[in-house]
């Protein structure tokens, strides 16, 4: 009898273990909100929204003030400037309390997507441009900015506002636009006895010289898988004079694109860029955290002008990053240029007007000076005037933005950065670029996979 009991007990224990843990796993897969349809109808959104409203109002009535939640991603310098700006805002508006949620870019999209699906996003939040299409394809999931009278949308060029518009709804403030720019570490190039490169010929020539003079570990350029995709786009648009995506299709033949992949391979073969294996082995999430970039072993990057500051800040003292000329070996330079980010307001927010007032302060009002160029060169006319008056409209970010804007003849598809393509674990870009770098897959095959992946996303 006793033996039976022991057995049953052991069995029961083990089984409950399995049950419990599997259920634990299950809970992450099944969100509690079943109301996450594409059309957040009144009924669907009602329950959590009402609850949130009620909760917010209790807070408001109890303390006699309003609590706003705001979220953004970025590097340390952006966090500090934004927090300072918010402190100033709270000091000037005693009735308002702002709660901040912020972090680094990696993983941010997962976080915000979960919040949006669960109707628990902050009152106002920084949004990537392509998220408008991803989360609000019919234009109703985010609040319409033009209906918020406290925010002055007329400070923005209509063409920019159009880029934020879906089905007539303006889904976010177009904070700034940004383009990919070449930057070179002057100190390293000088150590190698070279000028900073002005053309692809210079870049390709620098690889072997770096290898010989400075050592195996030195590379003139570092590019992760997404950077490689940008480089490919740049090369293709320059050489063939065609926009990357036209009419919802990748605008190149397999042969043309294979030529592009051959070009990328030549970069790796000529010791211009480290292999993806080497870059992953560095163990850093991004270049600004990569010791090899920080101490000048990687002497160049292709980066958004709006995020160059975090790279410059990361560099050791003796290193110096300068803006490079766009290489024009194959035609007219055509870099990748887009709305760098927006700020959206949650339609579930109980305090949309207060959120709009904060947006006005941040992007058209007094907050502009504190924020400076932390989110790129502001697109708001008023903000530009303010910054110009204080002499803040200068420096690397500003110059880079100017040169990028001048070399961007083509438009970028809002699906270029879709998660299915860009995600660093699951996306097609990383898969294809890794196929190239790790396994040296044939260029035509790579071209075909890229065309298939892009067209599938575009036709969604």
């Amino acid at each position, binding site marked *: 009898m006793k033996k039976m009991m022991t057995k049953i007990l052991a*069995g029961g224990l083990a089984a409950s273990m399995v049950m419990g*843990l599997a259920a634990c796993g299950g809970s992450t*897969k099944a969100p509690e909100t079943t109301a996450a349809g594409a059309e957040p109808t009144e009924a669907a959104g009602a329950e959590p929204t009402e609850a949130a409203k009620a909760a917010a109002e209790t807070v408001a009535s109890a303390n006699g003030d309003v609590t706003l939640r705001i979220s953004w991603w970025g590097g340390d310098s952006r966090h500090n400037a934004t927090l300072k700006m918010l402190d100033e805002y709270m000091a000037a508006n005693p009735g308002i309390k702002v709660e901040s949620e912020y972090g680094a870019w990696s993983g941010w999209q997962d976080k915000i*997507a979960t919040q949006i699906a669960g109707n628990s996003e902050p009152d106002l939040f920084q949004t990537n441009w392509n998220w408008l299409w991803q989360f609000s394809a019919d234009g109703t999931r985010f609040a319409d900015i033009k209906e918020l009278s406290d925010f002055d949308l007329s400070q923005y060029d209509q063409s920019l506002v159009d880029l934020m518009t879906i089905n007539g709804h303006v889904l976010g403030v177009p904070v700034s636009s940004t383009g990919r720019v070449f930057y070179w570490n002057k100190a390293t190039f000088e150590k190698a006895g070279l000028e900073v490169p002005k053309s692809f010929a210079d870049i390709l020539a620098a690889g072997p010289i770096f290898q010989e003079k400075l050592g195996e570990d030195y590379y003139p350029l570092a590019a992760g898988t997404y950077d490689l995709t940008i480089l490919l786009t740049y090369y293709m648009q320059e050489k063939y004079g065609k926009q990357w995506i036209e009419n919802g299709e990748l605008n190149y033949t397999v042969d043309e694109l294979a030529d592009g992949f051959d070009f990328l391979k030549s970069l790796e073969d000529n010791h211009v860029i480290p292999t993806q294996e080497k870059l992953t082995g560095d163990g850093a999430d991004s270049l600004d955290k990569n010791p090899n970039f920080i101490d000048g072993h990687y002497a160049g990057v292709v980066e958004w002008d709006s995020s160059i500051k975090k790279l410059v800040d990361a560099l050791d003292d003796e290193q110096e990053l300068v803006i490079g000329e766009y290489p024009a070996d194959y035609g007219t330079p055509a870099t990748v240029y887009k709305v760098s980010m927006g700020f959206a307001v949650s339609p579930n927010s109980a305090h949309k007007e207060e959120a709009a007032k904060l947006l006005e302060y941040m992007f058209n009002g007094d907050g502009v000076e504190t924020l400076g160029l932390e989110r790129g060169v502001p697109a708001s006319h008023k903000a530009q005037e303010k910054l110009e008056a204080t002499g803040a409209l200068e420096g690397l970010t500003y110059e880079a933005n100017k040169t990028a804007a001048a070399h961007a003849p083509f438009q970028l598809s809002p699906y270029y950065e879709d998660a299915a393509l860009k995600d660093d*674990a699951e996306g097609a870009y990383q898969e294809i670029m890794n196929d190239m770098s790790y396994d040296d897959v044939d260029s035509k095959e790579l071209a075909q996979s890229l065309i298939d992946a892009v067209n599938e996303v575009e036709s969604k």
Partner: protein
Amino acid sequence: MSNSGTTSSPNNFWKENKGFVFIFPWLVGFLVFKGYPFLSSLIYSFSDYSLFEGISKWGIFNYIEVFTNKKIQTGFIITFKYAFMTVPLKLIFALFVAYILNFKIKGVKMFRTVYYIPSILGSSVAIAVLWKAIFKDDGIINMLLGFFGIAGPHWLSNKTAALFIICLLRVWQFGSTMVIFLAALKGVSPDLYEAASLDGAGKWRQFFTITVPMITPVIFYNLVTQLVQAFQEFNGPYIITAGGPRGATTLVSLLIYNNAFKKYAMGLASSQAWVLFIILMIFTAILQYSQKHWVYYSDEEA
């Protein structure tokens, strides 16, 4: 149980059921946070539920996808590899250390504490970050190897090495397994050892013919729990390698996460979770069945 059904007075009813009051908080927690998600994921697994587009059709297509998609199959194969590498290594290591700590050595209490510490740290994010720092190209391990003139591999970006270091993280956290073994070892009667040594059995002989058979119930328990845990490993590969390089550490749990929160394919993710659950159940059942061949319960025959 008793004849209370016929003679129960209100007083009796309360007496017999007051236990429910005590487990009520747990029961609510279980139903809301485990029972409900558990069942809803089963329902979702038969739909094409997408986080942002809702449900448009029902069927078993997710399960067909799980069994035909090459990527998912690779995920399962990697998970098996991971589990079958981690669990035996961890059990052997934990038993080995427990055996040593069972001797009467000076300061043994301190050693027990020290060896348990990694387990307290558990699956914390900080440890995973530390692991990454140790194994990166110019991390401590490669620096040490460098002293001996060995060029270490790219631990984080080499396919085989990456899976191995993730196993190593779990093996290193052998503390709680060890403590359970330690308790079992203490329970083995000294008489048996005494008798064996009188008969001239050495330490090895004693270990394999007395210790191991006597603690098989605990080995069994550890085996099942560790296997279950290994199949659900997530933090290590997510933080250290993000499933890379080239998907070499993309365990099923990671794939589930990616499908759910990167592709928003909740339906597919749910079905993967259920397949994983069923695989776990099968393994547990096999182990349960097999225990009569190798697990010794001392109360078996009196």
